[in-house]
């Protein structure tokens, strides 16, 4: 029996390592597909200000959603935080979220970035413009996402794999704007223009553009902001070699996604959860997002960091982001057919 009791001792030791989740009467439990480093400082500040403890598990969207679905009404989660709108839509469709009303949120967050039935709200904006190599590209030659399929850009574009949710959302927004057929033709044209098979993340596309492997990269702006702040001089140099071009300014606007939050159907601390979402939408929290993460604030009237301000104002696509979720599977199939790896 000794070995057994030792195993239990090990387990007990492990259990003791855990902070006592549930020890606080007032707490919020979060399942988040946003990385810990990108939200933890704000959560800590919320706890400081309100005394409400915040417990966090991070993970991948699909897996977190399955966990929520399986756990059902006994799930400890109060809040689901994701890095895109499509997964919020999917959680709502799976029935694991509930509507919540908050005047503060209705006032501070534009309608485009809220679920029409009040199940989720956006917390930050993530713009996906075209980045171009300053020394090789005249920005007058750039216009829209649609134009990226133009043969003039043959062998000059870098973009990451279609496995990535940001590309899936971008294509979903094109389907919403131009229709399925036109978008498929566009995707084939884009694939034909790629400088290399898609690989790596957004930063890799920026680095490739800076290094001359391609002239244009499609990437989210906060990666560029992150590179500009990097401790690695080579990474800073790469970021400084490219500039931001806001496409579709004469039309619907540049594609944006959100990171956002939904209150779960099983929430046992709904009030505290809504209070946390409200806190994340305050100008103070929004300014932190902009400064630390390089994301755009979702509300109006928040001062931008010098980096973001330097890229100038832009018109964002005003498509309701729930549509991105609806069209996501369609977008993936389309990219498969177009041979976008």
């Amino acid at each position, binding site marked *: *029996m*000794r*070995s*057994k009791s*030792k*195993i239990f001792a*090990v*387990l007990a030791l*492990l259990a003791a*390592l*855990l*902070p006592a*989740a549930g020890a606080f009467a007032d707490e919020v*439990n979060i399942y988040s597909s946003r*990385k*810990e*480093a990108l939200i933890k400082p704000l959560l800590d500040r919320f706890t400081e200000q309100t005394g409400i403890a915040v*417990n*966090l*598990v*991070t*993970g*991948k969207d*699909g*897996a977190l959603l*399955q*966990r929520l679905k*399986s*756990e*059902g009404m*006994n*799930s*400890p989660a109060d809040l689901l935080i994701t890095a895109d709108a499509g997964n919020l839509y*999917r959680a709502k469709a799976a029935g694991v979220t509930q509507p919540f009303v908050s005047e503060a949120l209705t006032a501070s967050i534009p309608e485009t970035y809220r679920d029409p039935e009040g199940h989720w709200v956006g917390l930050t904006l993530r713009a996906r413009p075209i980045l171009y190599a300053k020394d090789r590209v005249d920005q007058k030659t750039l216009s829209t996402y649609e134009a990226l399929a133009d043969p003039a850009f043959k062998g000059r574009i870098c973009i990451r*794999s279609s*496995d990535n949710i940001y590309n*899936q959302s971008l294509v979903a927004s094109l389907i919403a704007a131009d229709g399925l057929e036109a978008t498929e033709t566009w995707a084939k044209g884009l694939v034909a223009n790629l400088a290399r*098979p898609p*690989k*790596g*993340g*957004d930063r*890799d596309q920026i*680095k*490739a553009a800076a*290094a*001359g*492997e391609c002239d244009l990269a499609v990437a989210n702006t906060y*990666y560029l902001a*992150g590179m500009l702040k*990097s*401790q690695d001089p080579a990474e800073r140099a*790469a970021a400084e070699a490219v500039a931001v071009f806001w496409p579709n300014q004469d039309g619907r606007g540049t594609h944006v996604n959100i990171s956002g939050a939904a209150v779960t159907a099983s929430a046992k601390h709904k009030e505290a959860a809504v209070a946390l979402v409200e806190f994340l939408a305050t100008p103070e929290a929004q300014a932190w997002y902009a400064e630390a993460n390089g994301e755009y604030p979702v509300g109006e009237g928040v001062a931008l960091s010098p980096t973001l301000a330097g890229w100038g104002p832009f018109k964002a696509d005003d498509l309701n982001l729930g549509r991105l979720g609806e069209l*996501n*599977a369609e977008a*993936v*199939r389309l990219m*498969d*057919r177009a041979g976008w*790896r």
Partner: protein
Amino acid sequence: MSSATAPEAVRPEATPSAKPSTTGSSRRSEGRLWSAGSVGLALLMAVPVLVILGFVLVPAGDSWRHLAATVLPGYVANSLLLMLGVALGTLIGGVGTAWLTSMCQFPGRGLLEWALLLPMAMPAYIIAYTYTGMLDYAGPLQTALRALTGWGYGDYWMPEVRSLAGAAVMLSLVLYPYVYLLTRAAFLGQSICVLDVSRTLGSGPWQSFYRVALPLARPAIVAGLSLALMETLADYGTVKYFGVQTFTTGIFRTWYGLGDTAGAAQLSALLLGLVIVLVALEKGSRRHARYHHTSQRHQAIRRHRLHGWRAALALTFCALPVLLGFLIPAGQLGIWALTVAEEAYDARFLRLTLNSLGLAAAAALLALGLALLLGYAKRLHPSPAVLASVRLAGLGYALPGTVIAIGVIIPFAWLDNSIDAWMRATFGVSTGLLLSGTLAALLFAYLVRFLAVSLQTVEAGLGKIRPSTDDAARALGLRPAGVLWRVHVPLLRGTLLTAALLVFVDVLKELPATLILRPFNFNTLAVRAFELASDERLADSAPAALMIVGAGLIPVILLSRSITSSRHVQTP
């Protein structure tokens, strides 16, 4: 780790009655208990795999037809090519180095003998990130080259790291130690007399390698290779980062991209089918061959001394995997870690390390105990039920960790919710979720995922003990549990340590299941390293990555000591 193997520790529970009985009927019933118990345990371990297989019955959308018509053939071809590449890489690297270090003497051999295991401490996705950071077009090497020569894009040729071939190399570099470790143990355990006999019968050194040593080591080589290949099939991190689309990509694309859980689970089931076929083919080709030793004579290996260019060649061949699989990537991680050192190391970092070590140790002990019970049950009663259930229990290794995690979440949540509903109905109290979201669920997932590792190792060890040893022990009045505990465990001490340490290192590196099953506010080194690396902050992820490698080093060094010292233990 030694506590589980102390002889007096388990005996009371393993032999239920105080006095050993020698009557035939009680022996038979004990035998039945062993079979039934092991089938039950194996099936419990197989629950997540069965849950995934069960999805075959759920009607899925038309994702299947879409995938088959567009991308699936390419994914399958890539998976097969990748497996082929990794098989070649790990066989050449693993068997070659194992033979050289155990049979030949050359400068640096003593050091390389254990250093060859070092790449095992390196998680595949981390080595992939590291090499890309170093060698990519925009990386320091090529940038320096261009600055030096004035070349531009397209002026020179450079192998592309992020490609299918690159992925095969990366995976081979971190997976060859499995083949090396098991093959080397087999070479060392072979009676040198057998080799001597082959030499007196006129074989040259190469001939006796090909015709005697290699065939005799086949179970060990196959065990190592199948671990490497299953790990390759389950890999998602490396192939995703390299943009190589494999079968696993298809699973996750169906799940995340198309939002079709059932379709993704069915693809996973197909993957398992492939593994089952492979395993069956190997078993079939081996048929009734037996690999235990019949000689009791053992002599210390007289290593063949190499001189001149042969020694240099052997040294290069054995040093290369260590250099590429460990020294270079660890060095790069070290450089990155230094740039962020002041922010990275704090009290929270210590906590991460303790979490990782604690989980790995607990999982290693449990996996070892299970492997011993199941491996011995197979030896005792190789009935179809026992064989099939044990085989099923070992399949978890070929599934991506996230898929295993889903196979754990579904039954655990169902059990928790059922208990809760029953308690509410009967006593009016809610028990909530008892197991879901606890470390117990996570440990269970580790066992499901890594049982194959300990099982393969223990089975390979048991296979080398002559059945007559069991017979003799039984004839002398020991019960089956007594044979296991008093004969096999002491004989297998080195093997058992190997099995436990392999699981320990694997759990230390494990990411996807940990990510999804861990309790609130619980992080490990792998989670930290991944979160930062996947956010494309390679330098920030380096301290945690380096710590995983560092923490993995101690068991790896213990491992190599154990295989050298266990040389004589395997024969009585």
